[in-house]
């Protein structure tokens, strides 16, 4: 990692952390739950409500991108298997 001025970025690098609700190595449910919670959050509070971003960051970190694309496609088609009602 070079120490030039351009390399000093404004990005805050952090992981999704530990969530005691999902203690095991298989984090599939956690990815799914965060996707669902993000969508329920923006349904309830609107897309600009800042705390909803926590869920967005979590699922973008945890979920494989292919899954996110599939979830988004299901959401558009109305075939997502969970309800987004808050």
């Amino acid at each position, binding site marked *: 990692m070079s120490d030039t001025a351009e390399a000093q970025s404004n990005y805050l690098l952090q992981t999704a952390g530990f969530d005691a609700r999902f203690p095991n190595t298989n984090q599939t449910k956690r990815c799914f739950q965060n996707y669902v919670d993000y969508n329920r959050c923006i349904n309830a509070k609107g897309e600009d409500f800042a705390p909803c971003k926590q869920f967005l960051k979590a699922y973008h970190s945890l979920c494989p991108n292919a899954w996110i694309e599939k979830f988004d496609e299901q959401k558009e088609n109305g075939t997502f*298997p*969970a*309800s987004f009602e808050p």
Partner: protein
Amino acid sequence: MNINLNRSQFQAHPYHLVDPSPWPISMSFALLIMAISAVMYMQGFPFGGYLLNLGTILVATGMSLWFRDVVVESTYLGHHTEQVKRGITLGIALFIVSELMAFVSIFWAYFHSSLTPAIEIGGTWPPLGINTLDPLAIPLLNTILLLSSGAFITFAHHALIKGNRRSAILGSILTIIFAVLFTALQYYEYAEAGFTIADSIFGTVFYCSTGLHGFHVIVGTLFIGVQFYRLLQHHITKSHHIGMEGAIAYWHFVDVVWLFLYAFVYLWASSGLL
């Protein structure tokens, strides 16, 4: 001078060494045809359906002819000594245990799918969009029908042991009537349910478990029916009726499996209660 022939005069043991029979080998071929044709049918191979029908007919015929021979050997030829009775009773018990293991495998699939529901079905059980059957409607009635039929067949058995032919016949008839009613109601439920076997893992485990059970109900009803017919034909005595006892044991097993089905597949999984 004793002119009566006694078994001990020509056989120094209480067992039945059966005469050569074509049914075991015939049954093994029939079962092989049935198994392979079932796979052919399910995988869409040509003539799978026809061969499956053939296989099923061969198995049913083989069973009928084999059991017919057992009736001849016991009722008409007198080969079933007390020791033979014990052996057959143990055999029937072990057979029921093997059937139990088949249900264990289906219940395993059910609990695997329902206790940690996959995200593909929304992480909930029942899955979103599945309209489960009301457990307090026809399924409850079916529970009562099966429990009552179990009581009727036990009543018939006790009457048989006491030598009360009329009550044994009456109890058997009531058992069969309630069994047929159960089957008819299940058929109605299957026709009117809001989901099919293809509707996610829920549909699969629901119809596989209740379907396997329903098949056993039909087999059990036939078993009792045959024994009822033999009762009418005076094949049966109050102290020698292991076929009837086998049918009764099988029927109670079918009843217990239903109770587990009702508790875990109907009640626990219904949309209203979870």
